[in-house]
C-alpha cells in the first residue's frame, strides 16, 4: 500500500505554548485511522496542520508531494467539527453548498456533469430531499450530512473528519458511520477521523492514533488493545477505550483471536 499522508517532526505552538511536538507518522492508502486523545491534546490542530489551515513547522507530504507544492485538493475531502453557519442567514441552498466541494471551476456557471456529481453525493448521504432548501434552515444534523456530501462530491481518496457525529441523532450516526465504513471497504477511501466515540466506530477503524501534544501511539487496533506498553503509557484512558471497544456492541471487534476476551471469559 502506498503512502497517502506523511509527516515528519511536526510542531505547532499557540503564543509560544506548544500544542504539537515532534509528530511523525505515515498513513497508507486504505487505512481507517481513529484519532483519539484528551481535550486540548492537539487532535484538531494536527488535522488543520496537515491541511495547511494552521502553519505548523516540520514536513508534510500528501501523496508524496510536499504540502506547499500540493495542488490535487480534489483528492481530499474535509468535514470540520463545527458547521460554518452559526447565526447569520447565509443565502445559499444545500446543493450550492455541496457544489463548493468541487475544485477547479471559478465562474458562476454549473455544468450538468457537476450537478450529477452533486446529486450523487447528496444521495449517498440521504440529503437529496434538501437540495433546494436554504442551508441555514436545516437542522444541525441535516447540515452536517449536507457538509459530508460536500466532502464526498469530488470523490476524494482521503476523508478527514473532525468529530463529525456530535450533532447527529442515533439513526443518522449509525447511517453516517456505515457509509464511512462502506467507502473504506468498497472504494478503499482512506479515512482520518477524530472521535471520542471509540465504541461506535471501533468495528470499522483499522488503526488508532493517540495524540496528547506528542504522538503517544500509532498502530493497529490489535496492537492498541493488546500492547501492555500502551496500557502502561495511557493508563485509565487506554483501559476505558478498550472496555468501550469491547462492550459497546456486545461483541469483540477483534473477533475470536482476542486475548482480552479469552482472559475475561
Amino acid at each position, binding site marked *: 500500500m502506498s503512502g497517502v499522508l506523511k509527516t515528519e517532526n511536526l510542531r505547532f505552538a499557540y503564543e509560544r505554548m506548544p500544542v504539537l511536538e515532534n509528530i511523525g507518522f505515515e498513513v497508507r492508502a486504505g487505512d481507517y485511522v481513529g484519532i483519539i486523545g484528551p481535550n486540548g491534546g492537539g487532535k484538531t490542530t494536527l488535522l488543520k496542520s496537515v491541511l495547511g489551515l494552521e502553519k505548523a513547522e516540520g514536513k508534510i507530504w500528501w501523496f508524496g508531494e510536499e504540502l506547499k507544492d500540493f495542488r490535487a485538493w480534489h483528492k481530499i475531502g474535509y468535514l470540520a467539527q463545527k458547521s*460554518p453557519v452559526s447565526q447569520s442567514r447565509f443565502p445559499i441552498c444545500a446543493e450550492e453548498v455541496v457544489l463548493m466541494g468541487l475544485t477547479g471551476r*471559478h*465562474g458562476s456557471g454549473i455544468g450538468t456533469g457537476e450537478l450529477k456529481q452533486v446529486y450523487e453525493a447528496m444521495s449517498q448521504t440521504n440529503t437529496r430531499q434538501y437540495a433546494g432548501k436554504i442551508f441555514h434552515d436545516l437542522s444541525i444534523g441535516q447540515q452536517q450530512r449536507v457538509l459530508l456530501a460536500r466532502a464526498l462530491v469530488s470523490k476524494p481518496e482521503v476523508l478527514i473528519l473532525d468529530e463529525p457525529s456530535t450533532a447527529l441523532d442515533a439513526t443518522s450516526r449509525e447511517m453516517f458511520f456505515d457509509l464511512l465504513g462502506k467507502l473504506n471497504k468498497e472504494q478503499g477511501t482512506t479515512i482520518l477521523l477524530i472521535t471520542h466515540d471509540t465504541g461506535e466506530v471501533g468495528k470499522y477503524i483499522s488503526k488508532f492514533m493517540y495524540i496528547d501534544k506528542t504522538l503517544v501511539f500509532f498502530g493497529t487496533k490489535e496492537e492498541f488493545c493488546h500492547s501492555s506498553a500502551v496500557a502502561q503509557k495511557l493508563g485509565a484512558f487506554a483501559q476505558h477505550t478498550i472496555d468501550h471497544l469491547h462492550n459497546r456492541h456486545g461483541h469483540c471487534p477483534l473477533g475470536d483471536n482476542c486475548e482480552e476476551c479469552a482472559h475475561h471469559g
Partner: protein
Amino acid sequence: MVSEFLSYGFVQKGLLAGSLVAASCAILGVFLVLKRLSLIGDGMSHVCLTGVAVALLTSTSPVYMSVPVVLLSSLGIMKLTQKFRIYGDAAIGIISAAGISVGLVITALAGGFNTDLLSYLFGSILTVSWTEGILCAVLLSVILLLLFAFYRDLVSSCFDEPFAKTRGIAVSTVNTILVMITSVAVVLAFKVVGIFLISALLIIPPVSALLVSRTFKQVLWKSVCFGVTSVWGGIFISFVLDIPSGAAIILVNLCFLAGAYIYAKIGHTVENGK
C-alpha cells in the same frame, strides 16, 4: 419637475457617478457583510480624513491623495488581524482612530476647518467631475469582471474560509483584493455621501437585500438595486427639499431597510402559518 431635475448637467454627473459608486459599494458590501468585515468601510472612511487633510494642505486632489493613504491603511488592518492575531473589529478601531487623529492634527496645523473639508465630511455629489465619473465606471467594471471570473471562489470563501482553503482557493489573496478594491470604492464614495456616511452605502443595501433574498445571486442584484435607487431617490429629494444629498441618500436606504424588514417578517409569518 422631474424633467427639470434631469436637465441639469451637474445632476446628470451626480446621478451617473453616484449610481456607479452605489453599485460598486452594494456588491462589495455583500461580501464584507457576510465576512463580518463590514465596519472596514467605516475605518477606511475615517482614514480618508487624513488623505483629504493632506490634500487640502498641499493643494492637491483629495481623491488622488486619499487612495494611497486608504490602501495602506486597509493593508495595515489586514496585517494587524493576520500577523498580530488582533480581532478584526479591534484592528479597524485602531486604524480608524489613527486616521481621525492624524487628519485632525493636520487640519489644525493647516489653520483649522474650512468649507472644503466640511463638504468632504458630509458629501457633495453635485461637485463630482467627469474624471471622477470615469474612475467610478472603471471601478465597477473591475468589480464585475472579478465577480464573474471568481464567483465561486468568492462565495465559497465567504461561506466557509477553512474549507475554501482545502479546495486550493487562495483565501488571503481574495481577502486582500476585496479590501483593496473597497479602499478605492470608499475614496470614490466620499464625494457622494461624505466621509461620515460611506460605510452606510457599503452596509445598508446588502443587509436589506439579505432580508429579502433566497439565493446569493438575488442578494447581489437586489443590493445593487437598493443602492442605485437610493442614490436617485436621495438626490431627487435633496433637490426638492434643499437638504444635503448624502444624508438624503442614506435616509432613503434606511426606508428600504425598514421595508425589507417588514416584507421579510410578513413572509416569515405567512410561511409559518401554512
